[in-house]
C-alpha cells in the first residue's frame, strides 16, 4: 500500500521547492519525485522511528530530559541559544520567547553565513523582488560568489535561468546569465559570461563597476584580474537590460571585506535603478534561515546576534554572535537548535561546547549531539512535522508533512522548557 503526496515542500535549502511528489510505503518515504539530490536524500534517509532523549548518553523519558534542560538553563548565568535555521517559525517563535524569558543570548546560523548581508542591508538598504518576478521579467541574471548548481540545485530551472514567464516566453534564450567567482564553478558552465575575480578583490571590482555605470573613466586596465573593458561591457549590459537581478552568496559575505562587499553590490544595484529596474536576492542556505531572521526581528527588532541579558533586546554582531561568545568563553550553557556547530565552527568555539553543558534539539545525530549533555531527537519539519518556512525571497510556505507525526516537535519541547523557566 503506498500513497503519493503532491505539492510537498522541500525543507532542505532556501529554494523551498513546493512541487515535490512523495510516495510513502509502510510509514517510510519510498520515492521522491522532482526533488534534487539534496532534497531526495533528506526525505529518503530520515528515520521517523521515535527515539528516546538522552542525558549524559543515558536514555531517559521526555519529562526527565526536559526537566534537566530546564535546570541547566535556569542555573546558567549566561546561556546561549543558537541555530534555528532548520526549524519552522512556530518553533523559532518559542526559541526567542525562551531567550527573552531566560535573559539569554540568541543567535542564528545567519551569523556565520549571510549575517554580513544583514549588516549591508542595515547600512544601505536592499532593492529586491520575489522569485516569481525573476521568472516573469528578468532578462539579465548575475550570480556573484554563489554556486547554485551545487548548493541550490533547482534554482536555475525553477526560478532563474530556464523558466518561461510573462516577458520571458523563450526561457533561457530570453536571458543573459553572468557568473562572477574566484574559480570556474559548475554554475559558471551555465553562464553566457564568466568573470574570474581574484580572491579578495570583489570590493574593487564592484567599486569599478559602480564608477563605470555612472559613466566615469577608469584608467587601470584590469581590476581584480578582470580587464576593465569587460567590466565596461557588463556595466552597459546592466544599464540596458529590462529587469536585472543579482544573486549573491558566501563568496561576498565570508571573504575579506564581508559586509562592505555586500554593501557595495547593494549600492550598485540601487544605483542601476536610475537607468532600468534591478534587484538583488541573497541566496539563503538553510531551509528556514530566512524565517529565523524574520521571527527574531519581529520579536526583538534585530535579525541575529541578540542578547536579552539586561531584560530587553540588544544587538551585537561580533559581541553576541555565537562564534565570538563561545570562543571568548562567555557562555556557561548552550541550547543548540537544529544545527551542528561542532562540525562548522572554528575550533576554539566548537571546543567550548564540550566544556559547558550543551542541550541539542535535532532530528538526526550530529557531531554536536555527540558532545551534548542533553539530546532531544525531535521530528523533522517538512517530513513528519508541519509548520512554516520562509523562502529566500521572504515568501512564507507551509510544510506538507508526508509521514505521521510520532516524535515530539521542537516547538513542543521548547514550549515545555519555557513553561519551566523560573522567574527572575
Amino acid at each position, binding site marked *: 500500500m503506498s500513497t503519493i503526496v503532491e505539492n510537498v*515542500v522541500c525543507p532542505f535549502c532556501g529554494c523551498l521547492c513546493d512541487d515535490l511528489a512523495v510516495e510513502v510505503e509502510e510509514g517510510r518515504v519510498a520515492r521522491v519525485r522532482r526533488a534534487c539530490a539534496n532534497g531526495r536524500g533528506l526525505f529518503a534517509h530520515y528515520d521517523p522511528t521515535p527515539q528516546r532523549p538522552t542525558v549524559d548518553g543515558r536514555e531517559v523519558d521526555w519529562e526527565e530530559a526536559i526537566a534537566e534542560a530546564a535546570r541547566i538553563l535556569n542555573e546558567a548565568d549566561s546561556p546561549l541559544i543558537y541555530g534555528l535555521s532548520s526549524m519552522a517559525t512556530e518553533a523559532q517563535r518559542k526559541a526567542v520567547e525562551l531567550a527573552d524569558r531566560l535573559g539569554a543570548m540568541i543567535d542564528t546560523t545567519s551569523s556565520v553565513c549571510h549575517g554580513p548581508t544583514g549588516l549591508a542591508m*542595515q547600512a544601505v538598504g536592499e532593492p529586491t523582488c520575489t522569485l516569481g*518576478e525573476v521568472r*516573469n521579467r528578468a532578462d539579465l541574471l548575475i550570480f556573484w560568489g554563489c554556486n547554485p548548481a551545487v548548493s541550490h540545485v533547482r534554482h536555475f530551472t525553477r526560478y532563474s535561468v530556464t523558466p518561461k514567464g510573462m516577458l520571458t516566453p523563450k526561457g533561457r534564450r530570453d536571458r543573459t546569465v553572468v557568473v562572477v567567482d574566484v574559480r570556474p564553478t559548475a554554475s559558471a558552465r551555465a553562464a553566457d559570461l564568466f568573470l574570474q575575480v581574484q580572491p579578495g578583490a570583489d570590493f574593487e571590482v564592484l567599486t569599478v563597476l559602480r564608477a563605470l555605470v555612472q559613466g566615469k573613466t577608469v584608467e587601470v586596465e584590469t581590476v581584480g584580474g578582470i580587464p576593465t573593458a569587460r567590466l565596461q561591457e557588463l556595466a552597459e549590459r546592466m544599464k540596458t537590460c529590462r*529587469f536585472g537581478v543579482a544573486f549573491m552568496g558566501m563568496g561576498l559575505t565570508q571573504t575579506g571585506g564581508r559586509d562592505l562587499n555586500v554593501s557595495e553590490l547593494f549600492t550598485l544595484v540601487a544605483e542601476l535603478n536610475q537607468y*532600468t529596474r534591478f534587484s538583488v536576492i541573497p541566496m539563503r542556505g538553510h531551509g528556514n534561515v530566512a524565517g529565523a531572521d524574520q521571527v527574531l526581528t519581529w520579536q*526583538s527588532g534585530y535579525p541575529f546576534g541578540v542578547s536579552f541579558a539586561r*531584560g530587553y*533586546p540588544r544587538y551585537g554582531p561580533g559581541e553576541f554572535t555565537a562564534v565570538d561568545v563561545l570562543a571568548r568563553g562567555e557562555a556557561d550553557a548552550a541550547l543548540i537548535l537544529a544545527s551542528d556547530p561542532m562540525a562548522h565552527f572554528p575550533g576554539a568555539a566548537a571546543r567550548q561546547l564540550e566544556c559547558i553543558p550543551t542541550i541539542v534539539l535535532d532530528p538526526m545525530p550530529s557531531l554536536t549531539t555527540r558532545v551534548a549533555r542533553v539530546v532531544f531527537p525531535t521530528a523533522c519539519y517538512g517530513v513528519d512535522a508541519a509548520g512554516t518556512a520562509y523562502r529566500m525571497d521572504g*515568501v512564507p510556505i507551509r510544510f506538507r508533512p508526508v509521514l505521521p507525526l510520532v516524535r515530539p516537535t521542537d516547538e513542543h519541547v521548547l514550549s515545555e522548557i519555557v513553561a519551566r523557566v523560573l522567574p527572575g
Partner: protein
Amino acid sequence: MLGILNGRVYDPLNGLNGEVRDIWVKDGRIVPPEEVDRERAEILDATGLVVMPGGVDIHSHIAGAKVNAGRKFRPEDHRDHTRTRTAFTRSGSGYTVPTTHLTGYLYVEMGYTTVMEAATAPLVARHTHEELEDIPILDKGAFITMGNNHFIMRCIREGDRDKARDYVAWLLSAARGYAIKIVNPGGVENWKWGRNVSRLDDEVIGFGVTPRQILTTLAWINDELGLPHVPHIHGINLGQPGNARTMVETIEALEGRRAHFCHLQFFSYGGEPGKRLRSGAAEVARAVNEHPNVTVDVGQIIFGEATTMTSDGPLQYRLHRLTGNKWLNDDVEGETGGGVVPMHYRRKNLISAVQWITGMELFLLIADPWRVFLTTDHPNAGPFFAYPQVIKLLIDRDARAEVLEGLHPKAREGALLPELDREYSLYEIAIITRAGTARALGLKNKGHLGVGADADVTIYADLEDKEAMFAHPRYVIKGGEIVVHDGRLVRERPGRTLYVAPPYDPGIEAAIRDHFERTYVIASDNYPVQDEYLPHGEVVPCA
C-alpha cells in the same frame, strides 16, 4: 463580571455625550444591568471619569513583510527605545517600528483595542498572520492589496467583471483578509518597468487598463460582495505638489460608490508638479464634504522620526532619491510591490511644515466627524502613540497656534490654518478615534457601549492636559478584562484576528490554477492561508 459605575459616557453611536451612566460587562460583552449579579461583580467607580469605547484604528502598518523589513533595517530606531520584560509580558524594542508584542502593549496602554493592518500582499499574507498572532491583546485585521493584481487587470481588459468579483472573493478568503486595499492603481505595475502613472486615464503597461477602471471595478466588486468595509484607497500621485486636483478627480471617478481614502494629507497638496509644496486641503475637504459616499483618514505628520513604508514602489524610490536615505524595495510577482525609506519630519523644514498644516486643515475643514478619522498612517507620518498629541491640537486652538509659531515661516504664508477656530469636543474625538472608524469598518460590535457590544472600554481621568489624558488612560478593558490600570499593563491576553469569507463561484478555481501556472512560482494549493494561522480568528459576516 464588571460594573463601570457613574462615569461620564461618550458613546456617539448610542447618542451619549458625557451623560452619567453605568456600564455592565459579562462574558466579554456589554450586557443589561439585570444580567449581572452585583454582589459578585467587580465594581469600578468611574465617578468624574470619562468612559469611551476602546479605540479603533482604521489604518496602521503594524505587521507583515514590509513592516518587518523596516524593523530589520533600522537598528538605529530601536537602540534607545526598549521595553523590559516583566513576569507576564515580553520585552521589545523600536520607536517608529516597534516589535510585535511592544506594538500591542503601546496601543493598549493608549486605550486602543482594535487595529487594522493597512497593506498586505496576498502572497505573503501568511507572514502577516504570524505577526498578528504575536501582537497580544488587540483585535486585528489585514487589508489585502489588489490595485495592481494581474488577474483583476486581465478581467477588466476582457470586460469580465463577474470573474473579477469571484476572484476577489477567493483572494480575500485565501489571504484571510478583512478588506480590499488599493495602492497606486496601475502605478506599481508600471514601476516594474521603471515608470508610474500620473493620471487616472494613463495606461498600465501590458494590460491596456487604467487606474480609473481598476478603482471603479473594485468599488463595484466591494458593493457586490457586501464587504463590511469599503474599498480602502491610496490613490495616485501621493506626495506630489498639485495632487489635490487628482484627489478630487479620484473622488468624482467613483460616481457615488462608497470608498475610504487613507492618509488624505499626502494627497492634498496645491501648487504645481515640480514646484513648491502648498496645502490644497481646502479643495480636497470641499470634495469630501460634497460626497457623502466617502470617508477618509488624515495621516497627520508628527515631527520627528518616521519610517515610510508603502506598497507604492515608485513613491518609495522617489523618497530615496529625494532624501538620500537608504532604500528597500520589494516587487511581488503578479500582485504588487513596495518599499521602505526612513524619514525625519522637521518643524523648520518647509515641506514637513506644509504637510503638518495640510493635515490639520483637513481635520478642521471636513465638517462631518463621522467621515474623517485620526491616523498618522503609522509609521509613515509618525508613530501611532503620538495620537494624544494630535487630539490635544484638535481640542485646543491655542496649542495649534503655538506649534504654528515654531514652523518654517514660509509654510504659514497663505495658510488657512491660523484662521480656523474650530475645536473638537470630546464627543467628536470619540467619533474620529472609535465610533466613526468602527462604523466605517463595518464592525458592529466595536466602537460603542450598547448592549451586545464587545466589552472593550477605555476610562480616562478628565485632565486639563488632553495629551496626558489620552496618553495614559486610568483603565483599559479588553474583552471584559482589565488590561491596563493607571497607564500600566496589568494583564496580557491574546487578541483576535478578524477576516471575511465572501462566497464565490467555485468555477473560478480552474482559471485561478491556470493563473498560478502562468504567474507564480508557488503551487496554487500551497497559497491559501491555512486555519492553523488563525487560532484566534473570527469571521465578520458580509451583508
